[in-house]
């Protein structure tokens, strides 16, 4: 009997579209309770590094500022392009008009930072709860500061977004301002999702070698130079947490290319091949282009396999990268999946990966952290992927952990990062065996 059958919440159904027959029966453990996750504001930490002319102004409380500071670690010291407009008693008591205050803060900011070309007003829990209309503010301020500065708005609040969903909300806000392509324009490819520059460049080189001429990237490094978009745009997701962005792209006529996510040799091959198929590239040519880098990735992974093969792994929910990474570790390194927890499961976007994950693997969506930790203690996995609030306490209990946030901050996509990705999981295990004290 499946351990799931005894757990409440497994039977709950959600409406699904186009799920594969095998998936239809798959039980998913859904729990509610305390969630040990970041809110969407955290996305700012990597988004502002990617968009070099953008500034992120959170409208929130001291807690929001404190979170950004804690999450940014020492990066706060690089005078980054983000800040918090901290709401005070006066703002809440209606003693001052919040919109006037916002104007004052934004004007001061734009005076100080003439290099800013795109300004995001980022909603938070407090601003959402008091219903501060940041969309209106963005419109009003935009009218004043255009064309020098474009002002957009999205919400990264914890009541609406989990960790990487902040990037989703941000990119979805960019979609409406992408220039339109005429209906008769030639087919174009759009890569969607924040990737480290080095990875993005690798992918652009590969697409060029494959013969796909027109390739755009969202987000673009230069916020005032967004790729164009139209009914002939075919977009491919580089990250699994972009549900809202995908809907916004579809609304403008773009169509998604179904593929695995580009992790490991197989995931990356599948991702590139799906794009090549969509652009009618000759299969023999595709094989010729991909053979060398894929072989390189496989060789590098073979070196790490002995360290990971047969090791049991549990993922606690964090970034929505869990399912594709679990697929990679299982298929390409021979790890055994125990529980794969994710904050949100987008079945359509993950369908190819979900199809690879066996029915004995416990899939969970959402979190009741205490119960989930009880399961981790009962399962005793060799390695547990979790957030930094849980990592040291689990280590103290004798469990080996891999902190999840690093997976969002490190270059892990593509052929040439496949071994680096595997190494992130192998290292804590190696260290555990190395230390004598």
């Amino acid at each position: 009997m499946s351990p799931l059958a005894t757990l409440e919440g497994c039977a709950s159904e959600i409406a699904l579209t186009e799920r594969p027959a095998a998936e239809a029966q798959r039980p998913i453990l859904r729990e509610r309770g305390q969630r040990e996750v970041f809110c969407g504001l955290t996305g700012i930490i990597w988004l502002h590094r990617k968009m070099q002319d953008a500034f992120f102004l959170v409208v929130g409380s001291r807690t929001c500022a404190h979170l950004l500071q804690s999450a940014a670690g020492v990066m706060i010291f690089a005078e980054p392009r983000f800040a918090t407009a901290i709401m005070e008693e006066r703002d809440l008591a209606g003693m001052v008009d919040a919109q006037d205050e916002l104007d004052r803060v934004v004007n001061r900011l734009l005076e100080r930072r003439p290099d800013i070309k795109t300004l995001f007003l980022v909603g938070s829990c407090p601003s959402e709860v008091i219903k501060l209309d940041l969309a209106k503010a963005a419109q009003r301020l935009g009218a004043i500061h255009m064309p020098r500065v474009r002002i957009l708005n999205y919400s990264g609040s914890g009541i609406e977004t989990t960790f990487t969903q902040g990037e989703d909300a941000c990119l979805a806000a960019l979609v409406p301002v992408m220039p339109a392509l005429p209906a008769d324009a030639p087919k174009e490819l759009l890569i969607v999702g924040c990737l480290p520059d080095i990875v993005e460049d690798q992918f652009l080189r590969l697409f060029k070698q494959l013969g796909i001429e027109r390739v755009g990237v969202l987000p673009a490094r230069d916020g005032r130079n967004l790729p164009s978009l139209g009914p002939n745009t075919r977009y491919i997701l580089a990250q699994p947490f972009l549900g809202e962005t995908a809907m916004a792209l579809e609304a403008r006529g773009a169509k998604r290319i179904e593929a695995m996510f580009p992790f490991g040799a197989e995931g990356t091959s599948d991702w590139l091949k799906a794009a090549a198929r969509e652009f009618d590239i000759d299969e023999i040519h595709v094989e010729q282009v991909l053979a060398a880098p894929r072989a390189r990735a496989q060789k590098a992974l073979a070196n790490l396999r002995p360290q990971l093969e047969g090791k049991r792994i549990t993922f606690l929910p964090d970034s929505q990268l869990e399912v594709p990474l679990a697929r990679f570790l299982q298929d390409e390194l021979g790890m055994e999946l125990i529980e794969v927890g994710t904050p949100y499961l987008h079945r359509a976007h993950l369908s190819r990966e979900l199809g690879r994950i066996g029915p004995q693997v416990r899939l969970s969506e959402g979190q009741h952290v205490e119960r989930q930790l009880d399961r981790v203690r009962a399962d005793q996995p060799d390695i547990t992927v979790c957030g930094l609030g849980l990592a040291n306490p689990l280590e103290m209990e004798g469990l080996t952990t891999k902190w999840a946030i690093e997976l969002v901050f490190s270059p892990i996509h593509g052929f040439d990062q496949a071994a680096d990705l595997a190494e992130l999981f192998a290292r804590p295990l190696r260290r555990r065996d190395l230390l004598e004290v």
Partner: protein
Amino acid sequence: MQLAVWTYEGPPHVGAMRVATAMEKLHYVLHAPQGDTYADLLFTMIERRGKRPPVTYTTFEARDLGKDTAQIFQDAAREAVERFNPQAIIVGASCTAELIQDDPGGLSEAMGLPCPAIALELPSYQRKENWGAAETFYQIVRALADKDLKRAPREGRRPLANILGPTALGFRHRDDLVEIRKILDQLGVDVNLVAPLGATPEDIARIGAADFNIVLYPEIADEASRWLERTFAQPCVRTVPIGVGATRSFIADVAELAGADPTPALGDTSSRMPWWSRSVDSTYLTGKRVFIFGDATHAVAAARIAREELGFEVCGLGCYNREFAREIRAEAARCGVEPLITDDHLVVEEAIANAACELVLGTQMERHIAKRLGLPCAVISAPVHVQDFPARHSPQMGFEGANVIFDTWVHPLVMGLEEHLLTMFREDFEFSDEAGASHHAAHSPRRAAAALAQAAAPPPTAPPEPVREPEMAYAPAPATAAAVAEAAPAPAADSAFVWTAEAEKELKKIPFFVRGKAKRNTEAFAAAEGRREICLETLYDAKAHYAR
């Protein structure tokens, strides 16, 4: 609205977490949205705790608003009590929950829980972390202290003291406590209770048994200690034993309240700092200009050490916690400087840039400001990063604390003899102003870049490009100007003064750490004298005018 990149203090509920995490068998049920669990990381990562903070967050989401958030709170509280079986819980709201007004206090009272539930009112939009810690500790003491407790008569027993104030995430609290216990041992005083750190709610019940209280960190324990004074007539030692002089006063105060002989504690032979400070290598420390910023307690203690124990000149003093501004004002008056009470790091940055100091003592933020301005720096106060929760014993308090402080503060400065040689031979082709002390990264890429920038010799009419880390445009304009002035003595394009080539060359010969000040003084002097051109004469007239 206040624009902030860096905040010296977290919100008040983080202060409450610091108290809850310090204690044992106490649980905190916090009404908070998803995401507020980020604060756990402060304890598990920065302080490297091997246990999760004892906090249950209700983690409500948008879809819960307006219907069942109160129910979610009660479920979370019930579950936490069942699972952790605490002796008491504290309940409260984070900034977002404060807006939805669910009243955690009333909700938990209605539940008839098997343990006391202490309600916390922490106004997130007015107050901050230290205040939250102080208020939480005060409410816990008030709720749990057994008011009927009668102190045993003093005859035939050793004196008893409470040590109040150490928390989780406190700067060096762990090691300060070791030093304080040592002193109490030497004085023959027993410890009734340390709180919050390590205390259980049941321990707190016995807080009235002590003869007197010792407040180590007023930011956290002052309010509770005043209530104890009123309720149990417990006198209180408020001298903070940071520095040799302050430690001696502390010993005297404790000895007086305990009726003990202070001599053995005062004669502690582990106190090396006075001799280190008198030895001739320390002569060069005399009159070094130091800028001090942090929490009020540590900043005031540091100012006293700087003036009386190291012979520095305090050229700036401030704190970020308004609650203790009075103490800073009094000490600033003794130092003859304007007090700086602000929680805006940009204001602090500007003050440091304008102070022409040679050493910065501050928090993690000042460490960075100093790095940017090319100034030596040591950390004296929270907020701090992971490296300031060290594995080794590193107190700030007591005689060992003074030893630690001497080493920590002097280390970033160039050693005396080396400074002398650098100054002697600064015209030597192998030396340059950019070569700092041998024990620091004197040849970092940044310095190389600076050398290149100087070699590129910008046209005299344009201000030279400041050599700074990328994305520094956020720094306040005055600081930028100062940084430019420090980086290159060439007058800025908008300067009202014309420096002769000779005077400019002479200015370059002045040691880099006082050059900016020399330039400003000279220009101020020239302005006062109505001279527009600055030649060698002006430079040396100004030097004579400002001679210390």
